[in-house]
């Protein structure tokens, strides 16, 4: 089972390369990929090559990266906050990023959306953190509460911008907020890849400490863990990853909540395997959802809609079936 989940992104990603609106025969797909890997097998520069190499491949990779970021930070934050209902957006990243996007589209068209979304996403987390800190030592309830406050605040700011801009720009903002990979290209992969990996590497290598943190503050301290410092590291790292993910894809809900939950049901709550498998599962899920989004109909459905449509009922099912046992308390 672990092997299946672990290798699922590669398998799903491979299959996704063969699916799309443009008719490319599987043989040609293989030829094109082979010629990219071994340059001596040069293939002519044909439209199919652009389809596979410049459209499907970066889109699959980007979806995978965003899936890794959302699911990886989901499982991390759930561990830190000891709450399976926490998701990467709880600290206000999505609302902050949405505001950055709205500002960029509405008033500062020369500042790239990605950059603005990232800056404001991280700014929102820092603000949430600063507010929580006014309560003395950072503990989980004040942090979640201040995340909710910051989300509400930035959501209101987004509404102001939406109100102030003309209908054309409003349409662009709404599009962006729906979350989609329809404009994915290598440039975005180059932005997202290093950032997401840099953000999640510390999480990956320190994942066993999440076991200690998820036992509760007292227990973690007793085990010699510096709770405060490690929380900051984990929150900072996952915020970085999510901030960058949001900046390239818009807001895609449910993945960070649903995938870790599902993986936890299968492999149990040990973060040593839970973290990497959640990342892998997140990538596979996101690639699948996006492949559905772009090939189910003639249209390019925003993938955020697909994840929500799959996610909400699935989550209800999970909660009924095994939510309690899987979390173990």
């Amino acid at each position: 089972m672990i092997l299946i989940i672990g290798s699922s992104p590669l398998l799903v990603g491979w299959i996704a390369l063969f699916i799309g609106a443009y008719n490319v025969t599987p043989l040609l797909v293989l030829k094109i990929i082979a010629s990219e890997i071994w340059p001596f097998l040069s293939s002519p520069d044909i439209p199919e090559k652009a389809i596979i190499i410049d459209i499907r491949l970066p889109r699959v990779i980007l979806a995978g990266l965003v899936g890794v970021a959302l699911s990886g930070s989901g499982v991390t934050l759930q561990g830190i906050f000891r709450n399976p209902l926490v998701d990467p957006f709880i600290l206000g990243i999505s609302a902050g990023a949405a505001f950055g996007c709205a500002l960029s589209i509405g008033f500062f068209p020369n500042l790239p959306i990605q950059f603005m979304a990232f800056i404001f996403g991280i700014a929102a987390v820092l603000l949430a953190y600063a507010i929580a800190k006014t309560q003395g030592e950072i503990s989980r309830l004040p942090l979640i509460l201040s995340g909710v406050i910051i989300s509400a605040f930035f959501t209101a700011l987004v509404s102001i911008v939406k109100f102030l801009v003309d209908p054309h720009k409003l349409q662009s903002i709404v599009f962006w907020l729906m979350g989609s990979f329809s404009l994915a290209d290598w440039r975005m992969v180059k932005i997202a890849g290093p950032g997401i990996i840099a953000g999640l590497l510390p999480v990956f290598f320190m994942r066993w400490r999440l076991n200690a943190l998820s036992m509760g503050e007292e227990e973690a301290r007793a085990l010699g863990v510096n709770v405060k410092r490690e929380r900051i590291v984990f929150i900072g790292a996952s915020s970085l990853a999510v901030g960058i993910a949001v900046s390239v894809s818009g807001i895609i809900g449910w993945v960070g909540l649903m995938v870790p939950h599902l993986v936890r049901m299968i492999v149990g709550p040990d973060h040593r395997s839970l973290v990497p498998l959640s990342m892998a599962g997140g990538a596979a899920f996101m690639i699948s959802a996006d492949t559905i989004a772009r090939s189910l109909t003639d249209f390019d459905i925003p993938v955020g809609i697909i994840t929500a449509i799959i996610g909400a009922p699935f989550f209800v099912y999970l909660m009924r079936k095994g939510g309690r046992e899987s979390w173990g308390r």
Partner: protein
Amino acid sequence: MGRLSRFLGSILLLFMVAAPLQAATVTYTDKMGRIVHCPCPVKRAVFFISYELIPALGIWDRCVGIGRWAYDNDLMKATRPDIEKSIPSAGSGSDVNIEALLKLKPDIVLTWTSKPETVRFMEEKGLRVIAIYPESLPELYDVMRLHGRLFGREKRMEESISKMEEIFKLIKERIARIPVDKRKRVLWLGGKPTSVACGIGVTNDILNLIGGINPAASIRQRNADIPMERIIAWNPAVIFIWGNAGYKTRDIINSPQWRFVKAVRERHVYKAPEWSTWSPRLAPIALWMAAKTYPEFFTDVDCEKVTDGFYRKVFGIPYSKVRPFE
């Protein structure tokens, strides 16, 4: 006798006065299927939409309120430089400030159908509202003629329409010379590069009029988000970008994803001006598009000159006063 003749005379006078009054009620079924009766000519109107028809009809004196987006419109600023100071706004078609609107005491509110509940709300507050959303060239003409009737400027509106028709005729004559198998695929990109104009709407009508083949026409919608792969499969020879889109021509030209699209390979990607297509300005836009699509058939046409002449005739200003073509 004298009394009788005076009596008859006054009855005659009454008829003379009343007859035009009776006739002067416009009855119109709007885009939401509502039947609206409006006495005319209208003296006080609020334009949340269709404000580009104000200068075309020469009715600035009847406009007591305007949608807030009109303040950014190049044609509005050119024909009424003091618009922000002289004409108040009561919001827009999507966000109406009902008190501000009632204060303007309009005889009619012209708005669009984007938010039907707003239309109903205004109606419940005792306002006379017509909701507009032209989805084809005939529907646009219908809306224009409605404005002509409402403001008693039918003749002037017909003149504008005939000026538009003159340009369309010029285009059609040239397009008729193009063999059917030489017609080019033309795609219109919207708010984002993969959001395209489909088979319903004024834009699609114009693509047809200029002899283009809109590959998205089989999708019976106004706009749709299309996977990039499909656009490559359609392989349009010419691409137009909506004037209000947030990206530029070079964003398309320089993208590796678009490099196999014929229009990009041959550098036939153009961004339209930010002009309304629900306006007489549709005609010069169409001419510009036709000339960009089939330049070899328009070598003898000075588009700028035609456009300038059109602006002077229809709006009373030179073309140099508005935002120009790319």
